[in-house]
């Protein structure tokens, strides 16, 4: 567990902010406070925050808006976010939860409830991070090599070899080849491939146009006969696949 997680609390009511700080600090958390969304964003940019607790009704930028901004930023998307609001109508709570907020607590809040939610969400985000790391590790160690006949792709070292000949590929070319190899001979559509190689969502025509030079370049470097195991096959009208042993 990380040492002394830090929590950002956002509320325009100064007295409330003070009391929550007391409670959280007494439970050994480091607390940052902000009285509006803009201040909160500033803090997020400069400090490492492990959990956010925010009111909803606030001037200039309300809690919903703050939540959306936080989720839009890749750096902060994994930070658990809790609403603490005096808006307690069923419709309010439904709305907040539908946004995907991690929890929705209502005022007045009991100390025990606040702490339980905080502890729970911090534990959850730690769990998520842990399982992600474990997954990545297991993928790495178990499937370090992808092969297709004499073609060998080293995922860790980003090296491609044919028999003993090393084939130098660019990063994008490697991504393409590795992805096709992972699909174990299944046909992949151009739109799917372009998402992987270019992080682009587009129509099949543009996808095909963008992919063509990349495919050509890889083929040239692989220098394999059409249909040979390890070569890239174009399945007309559907997509591309890596030819694997039958």
């Amino acid at each position: 567990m990380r040492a002394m997680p830090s929590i950002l609390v956002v509320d325009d009511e100064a007295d409330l902010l003070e009391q929550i700080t007391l409670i959280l600090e007494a439970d050994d958390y480091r607390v940052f406070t902000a009285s509006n969304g803009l201040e909160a964003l500033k803090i997020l940019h400069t400090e490492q925050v492990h959990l956010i607790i925010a009111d909803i009704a606030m001037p200039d930028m309300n809690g919903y808006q703050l939540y959306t901004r936080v989720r839009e930023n890749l750096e902060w998307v994994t930070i658990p976010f809790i609403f603490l609001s005096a808006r307690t109508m069923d419709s309010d709570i439904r709305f907040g939860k539908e946004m995907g907020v991690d929890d929705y607590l209502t005022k007045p809040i009991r100390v025990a409830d606040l702490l339980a939610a905080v502890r729970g969400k911090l534990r959850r985000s730690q769990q998520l991070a842990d399982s992600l790391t474990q997954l990545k590790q297991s993928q790495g160690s178990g499937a370090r090599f992808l092969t297709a006949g004499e073609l060998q792709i080293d995922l860790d070292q980003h090296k491609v070899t044919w028999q003993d000949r090393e084939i130098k590929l660019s990063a994008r070319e490697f991504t393409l080849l590795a992805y096709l190899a992972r699909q174990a001979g299944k046909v992949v559509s151009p739109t799917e491939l372009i998402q992987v190689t270019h992080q682009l969502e587009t129509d099949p025509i543009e996808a095909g146009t963008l992919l063509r030079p990349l495919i050509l370049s890889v083929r040239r470097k692989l220098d394999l006969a059409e249909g040979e195991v390890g070569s890239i096959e174009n399945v007309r009208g559907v997509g591309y696949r890596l030819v694997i042993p039958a």
Partner: protein
Amino acid sequence: MKPQPAILVVDDEPDMLENLSLALQVADYPHLTAKDGLEALEILQTQPIQLILSDIVMPRMNGYQLYQQVRENPLWGAIPFIFVTGCWLNSEICYGKELGVDDYLVKPVKANYLIAVIQGKLRRAQQLAKAADQ
């Protein structure tokens, strides 16, 4: 387009399972049911599951134990887990939340509330999955 993974509903009371099933049906969510934790684990082994709704008090393996089992497997670590339970005591709610469960709903649960929670958790899971791929 790959088929949407199902929601897994775990409850030892058949009436409750039916209720939840109906609510999910109306909202167009494919779902599977299990009457206890062991059955649930079996299903998890063989089917892709995108969210779990679980009771707490169940025979053979209760909700807390199921939750621990699910979280211990890194393959299932990202699946949102929601308690839907009759345990309404504040101490019980705090206990459940502290475990890190994604949400804790006390029965009886209104259908529109349940669906809103599920939508939110799925949205969140998507966000996290996308972030993990980066």
